[in-house]
């Protein structure tokens, strides 16, 4: 069996992200890390491959910055990493990335399961997951919090999905695209040896020509980034005994008409 994980690099969540004078998004000298949600997907791929004697491949679509996430994946124990990039993908949107993502999975050929994290912490549309699945023509199982059973020979899978209202158990078939939640596992830290091996890895870059597709035309475009309007930060500290604090706070909240 063969499991593929998609990932990308994102700024560390502790970074102060800001838009600079020229309209560019910056995060100072904060590190670029693997998208935190994808660590659960990478861990699950490794667990699945171990349990079923299969192999794992990680794919990122994007410029060299995304090697960071790929190296982290290799250091965790993913077998192969591939970066997909081409001038023709510059300025792409989720739909054009999905076309390239599906073409990359098809090029690998023997894939049973594609894993994604819940969303990316920078773009955060979660569109990539569903659009890649539709371009592959595969079933999507989103927000998976547990894989109850998967049978790669019989091509069946049973999972628990985390809905807004509770937990749903569904059965479906492979190949499938699934996105995983943090309840699913405890991602491992890369080992020292893993990090050393990954740092020496030569990650192949697949072009559109190698994928056998033309440049997908983007349908949307980000035209500007802006800082958030400054928050009203005038803080009023309410003092006194707990009862006095409670009474004074209620006075204010009723005055402000939030209650």
């Amino acid at each position, binding site marked *: 069996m063969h499991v593929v994980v998609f990932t990308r690099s994102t700024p560390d969540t502790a970074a102060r992200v800001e838009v600079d004078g020229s309209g560019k998004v910056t995060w100072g000298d904060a590190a670029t890390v693997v998208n935190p949600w994808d660590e659960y997907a990478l861990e699950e791929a490794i667990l699945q491959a171990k349990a079923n004697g299969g192999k794992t491949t990680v794919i990122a679509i994007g410029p060299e910055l995304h090697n960071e996430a790929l190296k982290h994946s290799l250091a965790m124990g993913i077998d192969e990493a591939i970066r997909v990039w081409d001038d023709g993908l510059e300025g792409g949107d989720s739909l054009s990335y999905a076309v390239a993502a599906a073409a990359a999975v098809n090029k690998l050929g023997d894939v049973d399961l594609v894993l994604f994290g819940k969303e990316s912490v*920078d773009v955060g549309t979660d569109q990539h997951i569903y659009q890649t699945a539709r371009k592959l023509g595969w079933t999507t199982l989103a927000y998976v919090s547990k894989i109850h059973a998967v049978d790669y020979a019989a091509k069946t899978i049973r999972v628990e999905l985390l809905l807004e209202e509770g937990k749903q158990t569904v059965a479906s078939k492979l190949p499938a695209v699934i996105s995983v939640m943090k309840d699913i596992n405890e991602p491992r830290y890369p080992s020292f040896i893993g990090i050393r091996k990954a740092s020496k890895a030569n990650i192949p870059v697949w072009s559109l020509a190698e994928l056998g597709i033309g440049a997908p035309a983007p349908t949307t475009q980000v035209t500007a980034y802006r800082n958030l309007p400054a928050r009203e930060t005038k*803080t009023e*500290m309410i003092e006194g005994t707990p009862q006095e604090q409670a009474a004074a*706070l209620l006075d204010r909240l009723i005055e402000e008409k939030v209650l």
Partner: protein
Amino acid sequence: MSAVFVWIETFNGKAIPASWEALAAGKTLADQFGVPLTALVFGQNAAAVAAEAATYGASKALVSDDATLADFRLEPYAALLTKLVQDSSPKAVAAAATSRGRQLLAASAADTESPMLSDVLRLTVADDKASAERPAYAGKVLSDAAVTADGTQFVAIRSRAFKAAEPQAGAQAEVTTVAPVLSEDQIATKVEAFEAEVGTVNLTDAGIIVSGGRGMANNPKEPPAGTDKPDVWKAQDGFENVLKPMADALGAAVGASRAAVDAGYIPYAHQVGQTGKVVSPDLYIACGISGAIQHQAGMRTSKIIVAINKDPESPIFKMARYGLVGDLYQIVPALTEEIKKRLGK
């Protein structure tokens, strides 16, 4: 005969409130394009939900009430939406940007090679094309995204960004029944079981949120002898018997920091922040939460923030409108009393 479609998301045959906000956003598009506003209702009780959609401003409705659509499953839902889009080329399709709404719109936009804007906070239309303001970097900055291609424009509307219309009793919509596209044997996914989470108030819809953090573990109550993890017991007891009563008195939802979730005090569904839910209630009361940047990312657009924390240096106070320094286990019960007294509950 073009239109703007709005998918009215339902659960157990009832529309979710965010659907009416999406319908309001759809109305602004329909007015700008000069086309009718059509509600799409799939699944149980579709006719009744369509009638309700009329009171919220839909002039037409396409309904499909079929056993294959009883529970939301992406395959039959997306197949049907894609067919409706291919058949009548609507100007736009809107839905609430919930977990289901995002899946459905993204899938159908991919099927039809159409542009999609997600998590829309504000919409404008110029030259027949929509542009949206949307959060980026988990809400740390804002971005403008524009539709650049022709075709149906898919827009997923962020909760609480648009105001639902006042329902007009007696308003009617022209209802057309549509057949599902997939039959049960063409659908790979089968729902086997559902276990509701008791007492969840949907965080993203909530007008008031009361959140607890790691400080919840400093409950003065003693756990029963032999309790395995006393801090977990203390925090869980605090969420249940101290925080929840205040939330109930306010009609509020209960949120939490990641530290509280990771420590097992409360399920993940309650997590607010960069890797939890991004919320913007009118009132957010943070109890025993320090206000880490990842937590801020999830709640910084709340209208009024109240911080209750025993450490006056805690960063949460910098963003709070009102700060109460002290022990949450003394302040929250006092607040609950006061709320009951003033709001007469």
